[in-house]
């Protein structure tokens, strides 16, 4: 790819008219998963960082995108100078590799706001609730001047908690009808939440759901998470109810915990770089495997002509040497 990454980085970091376009291009490279993506990550290591990275996760249809829409509305009203980025992840088809990225529909009223940058991402086979390129996209959002970045995961189940490795605060978005206290006791997703947002507060059963969740979350004093009574919220994105209060709460936590979060982001950097290298390694491995197809590697192993260890060593060695 003969794209001048350095020029894009320069342009994305300035206030010129090409800022958004350059940043968007960099994000495409970052999510492309090639050597160029790792290259971009390396060049962005010292880029400005957002003050707050907020993760929103929860089941499909619990209202994550609608909540993002309301948070954008209130953030912008309270801080006219702020720049906000949104990375909204939706699933890729494991059958066609295509995707329908529909989160933006809920946020379209912000499309004309020059201070809001919304980017949709498809998972492209990545497991964990995010896409492999999200870390790089987040870095580009920082470079492009976003103070706050909201990351919306795919609709998740009980175990996709990768968002915890990127966000300063993880908001679990829930809706009435999604189980009772037994669900709240389970390991996985519920352990990853810093804040629990019961959405659809205008729907039947919301108050009871909220009360049960409150009792479960507060049952145990958590070492890793600061879960005071305020950490369980009841809101309605549709009715715009409780959103301003939620934002106030998030602001207070940021003021109190920002220094700790910054330090934590630095310790996580190694994890993300390793993940990017792994993605790259997998690409190269697949290319190497395709190149070997003619020599029937599976047949050779089955006939005992090649040992599996020998084959995997050869694959890894070639993948390491050959740039794709």
């Amino acid at each position, binding site marked *: 790819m003969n794209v001048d990454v350095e020029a894009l980085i320069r342009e994305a970091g300035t206030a010129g*008219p090409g800022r958004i376009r350059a940043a968007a*291009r960099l994000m495409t490279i970052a999510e*492309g*998963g090639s050597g160029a993506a790792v290259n971009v990550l390396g060049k962005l290591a010292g880029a400005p960082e957002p003050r707050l990275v907020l993760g929103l996760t929860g089941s499909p249809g619990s209202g994550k995108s609608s909540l993002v829409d309301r948070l954008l509305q209130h953030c912008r009203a309270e801080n006219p100078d702020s720049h906000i980025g949104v990375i909204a992840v939706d699933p890729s088809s494991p059958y066609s590799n*295509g995707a329908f990225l529909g989160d933006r529909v809920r946020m379209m009223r912000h499309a*004309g706001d020059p201070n809001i940058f919304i980017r949709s991402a498809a998972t492209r086979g990545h*497991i964990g609730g995010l896409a492999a390129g999200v870390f790089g996209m987040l870095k580009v959002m920082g470079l492009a001047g976003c103070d706050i970045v909201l990351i919306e995961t795919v609709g998740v189940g009980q175990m996709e908690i990768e968002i915890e490795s990127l966000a300063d605060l993880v908001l679990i978005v829930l809706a009435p009808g999604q189980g009772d206290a037994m669900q709240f006791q389970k390991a996985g997703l519920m352990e990853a939440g810093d804040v629990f947002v019961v959405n659809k507060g205008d729907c039947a059963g919301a108050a009871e759901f909220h009360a049960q969740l409150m009792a479960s979350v507060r049952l145990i004093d958590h070492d890793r998470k600061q879960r005071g009574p305020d950490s369980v919220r009841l809101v309605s994105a549709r009715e715009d109810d409780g959103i301003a209060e939620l934002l106030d709460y998030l602001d207070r936590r940021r003021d109190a915990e920002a220094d700790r979060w910054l330090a934590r982001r630095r310790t996580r950097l190694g994890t993300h770089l390793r993940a990017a290298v792994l*993605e790259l390694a*997998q690409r190269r491995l697949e290319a190497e495997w395709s190149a070997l197809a003619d020599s029937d590697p599976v047949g050779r192993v089955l006939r005992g002509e090649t040992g599996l260890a020998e084959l995997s060593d050869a694959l890894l060695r070639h993948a390491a040497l050959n740039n794709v």
Partner: protein
Amino acid sequence: MASSIAFAAQHPPVRILIGKVGLDGHDRGAKYVAHVLRDAGYEVIYTGIRRAPEEIAEAAVQEDVAVVGLSFLSGAHIALFRRVIEQLRRRCAGQVVLVGGGTIPPDDVRTLKSMGVAEVFTPGTSARTIVDRIGQLLDKRQVA
């Protein structure tokens, strides 16, 4: 941090924006085409109905799409396409491939093409034709 084997071996999917501009709310065709393109391996960013030309252009830039597809059943296709093109150029995104669809008379199809719309799909066009034609337009762009 796993990734599926099928994905790792392939080029990143091409991104396409599908949306509707203006006051017309008939979105069945746009949703159908979005679904067809998804099944053909494209990443479709769907904007929904009643968008302003500025919103479509800004979304196209932020999403860095290769193609913008707009559906019209209102009769306002020429005026609205003109504004979308103008807004894309203003954002240095004039090279995005534009396609249109809907109830568009043959004369207007010619006018749209002279304005820079690469292809127009009128009622009765098969899903296969849409997918093939968009593929051709993207191939042509890569050669150019």
